[in-house]
């Protein structure tokens, strides 16, 4: 099996999708000749022509408006938003249009073919506007699916599944891992399921839950915890919406403890939803309060980014606090 980094895996998934189905069309700012500022769409214009892989004018609301129409027509658009921080001009098209297209028309029309790819997250000295993790905004929006891969293998399989999914998918790519995360990735076609969490490590004392780049942080924290004699069960949520309550609840019923971690600010972050749902479902089994390790309730900083980030030490301390409660 070849080794790929996450960008290669994403590029490979797009290549497979475009080769297989000529209705798949990739576009966004700088995605054409240049292959995108991160090069996720490298060579696609060369291979599939300018009509199927192209630069758009610099207007996110237009990119998604265009993509909605194209999907309604029956094409399979894969739109790139250059940074997740710049998805907000398209918020209306996503939240009021993409998400409600099928429902409002009674299924006469739908934009299920649409996939929106966008790099998210911190750890790259990007400051306010190249670091945000906006998944929770979209997770409050019925009609959307929200997917976040943690490594190249997951990225390829989940992206192929997203493109083929009958519903519109927001695909958040942890840009800090674009080149940093490498691993074996099958050359051929495969899909990973949307809406299913994955237990990446079994354990008995506490369940530690995250998604995307935060899984790497969790792994480091868990390593410390295991050394300290704490047995951790680790879950990668993978889909934020719909999210796999069953898998999480099952784990918590076993461990009695849950810690959730994400980079986004705490207040209104998706950990809140998970905590609320799980305390309801596992109330009598909880041995300590559900803990959250998150970004601060501030805009994303720069010079003190390291202090801001919910890193492995903070997660480790929270694991200990949860077990020692």
């Amino acid at each position, binding site marked *: 099996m070849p080794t790929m980094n996450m960008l290669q895996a994403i590029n490979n998934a797009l290549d497979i999708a475009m080769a297989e189905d000529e209705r798949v069309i990739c576009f966004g700012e700088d995605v054409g000749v240049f292959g995108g500022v991160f090069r996720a769409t490298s060579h696609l214009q060369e291979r599939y022509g300018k009509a199927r892989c192209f630069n758009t004018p610099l207007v996110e609301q237009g990119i998604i408006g*265009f993509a*909605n129409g194209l999907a309604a027509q029956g094409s399979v658009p894969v739109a790139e938003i250059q940074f997740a921080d710049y998805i907000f001009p398209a918020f209306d098209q996503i939240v009021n249009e993409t998400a409600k297209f099928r429902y409002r028309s009674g299924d006469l029309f739908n934009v299920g073919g649409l996939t929106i790819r966008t790099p998210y997250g911190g750890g790259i000295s990007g400051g306010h506007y190249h670091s945000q993790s906006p998944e929770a905004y979209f997770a409050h929006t019925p009609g959307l699916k929200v997917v976040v891969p943690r490594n190249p293998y997951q990225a390829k399989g989940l992206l192929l599944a997203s493109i083929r999914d009958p*519903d519109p998918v927001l695909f958040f790519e942890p840009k800090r891992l674009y080149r940093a995360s490498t691993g074996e990735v099958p050359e051929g076609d495969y899909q990973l399921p949307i809406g299913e969490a994955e237990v990446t490590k079994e354990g008995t004392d506490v369940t530690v839950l995250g998604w995307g780049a935060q899984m790497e942080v969790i792994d480091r924290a868990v390593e410390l915890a295991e050394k300290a004699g704490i047995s951790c069960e680790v879950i990668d949520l993978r889909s934020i919406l*719909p999210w796999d309550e069953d898998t999480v609840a099952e784990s918590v019923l076993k461990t009695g403890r849950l810690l959730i971690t994400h980079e986004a600010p705490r207040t209104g972050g998706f950990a809140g939803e998970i905590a609320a749902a799980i305390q309801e479902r596992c109330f009598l089994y909880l041995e300590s309060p559900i803990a959250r390790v998150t970004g601060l309730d501030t805009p994303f900083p720069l010079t003190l980014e390291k202090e801001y980030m919910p890193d492995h030490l903070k997660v480790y301390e929270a694991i200990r606090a949860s077990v020692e409660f």
Partner: protein
Amino acid sequence: MTTTEDVHALAFMTGDEFHIPTYRLLQQDGTLFEGADVPDLDQDQEKALRIYRAMLVTRVLDERMMAAQRQGRLSFYMQCTGEEAAVIGAAAALDDADMIMAQYREQGALAYRGFTYDEFMNQLFGNELDYGKGRQMPIHYGSRKLHYMTISSPLATQIPQATGYAYGQKMAGEGHCTITFFGEGAASEGDFHAALNMAAVHEVPVIFFCRNNGYAISTPAHEQFAADGIAPRAFGYRMHVIRVDGNDILAVYRATQAARAIAVEKNQPVLIEAMTYRLAAHSSSDDPSGYRSRKEEDAWREKDPILRMQRWLTAKGWWSDDEEKALQESLRREVLETLKRAEKRPPPPIDSLVSDVYADVTPALQHQLDALKRHIRRYPDEYPKGARSLDPDVRAEGAADKPADDEQGGA
């Protein structure tokens, strides 16, 4: 890229360097202007009557439904009144399989394509036969079979969508285009700018049809923009543009026909600005007396587009007063009958609350639905609409006369 000549003396341009005229063919008395183009409609009685019928269908629907709203039988309504020529003339100039992405005041285009009073009514009352399953406010029509995109309230969102839809049509290569309608108010939204620019850059077969009817709710056009209407914006995108008298069926038809040829044959977008007037209130919730004069309204009432077309048809010997009277009466009767039918029909079943959020109902949504049903069973009298469809027998009865999905404007 931009290549221009040089000047060495300071001068600002202001837009006074050019002038955008209004294309008009038909005078209010039903005769053509001297020297006017003669459109092919002049030779096509069948199409002319199809158009005229659609105008009357629309006018009568609007009158009756506004009355029904006043009587409290309907929650909300919006009229096309005064703009029938703009909307129907444009629709008639297209292929019936071209996509229409409208704002909300374009029921005339749908009527032209053959949407029936029953279909209108089912949407207006959000009953179990509504294609939209009773989820949107009245006037949010849609028909897949008639290539008419379901209306969405957020303004201007359909404009870049039309660009995308038309791009897909170009890729499909079947010679179709998309027309999108919008008001001069909606054209202020950022989505408008995005849509026109992308269409010009990517050479998309889309027609941007602006109904400049003078008002956006209470806001007059001169508080909406300082420029000479919407038309000069086309220059900012290098786009074909024409301004037309929106109350002149022949001019609208002819201009849109030519625009369609540019779109489909050259893959170039076109902007049409139709000068017209919203004769009625913005909606049933609005009272225009607070922001405009009776006198202004009356002046426009004299330019009624239906009357103008009627006079033309009559002069050509294609239409008579008797035919007019008979059609008006039969339409009125039909509206009232279908209205009665539609308002009595039961609402969509409770399960429709959670279907179509996704292609398949998710476990979480099924769970929420189940809990809701349990709750309604506990208080059936408090939720009569929902309670009805909890009982499979009632449900089956209601569904008995429901035509199969594919007859319904569905896929």
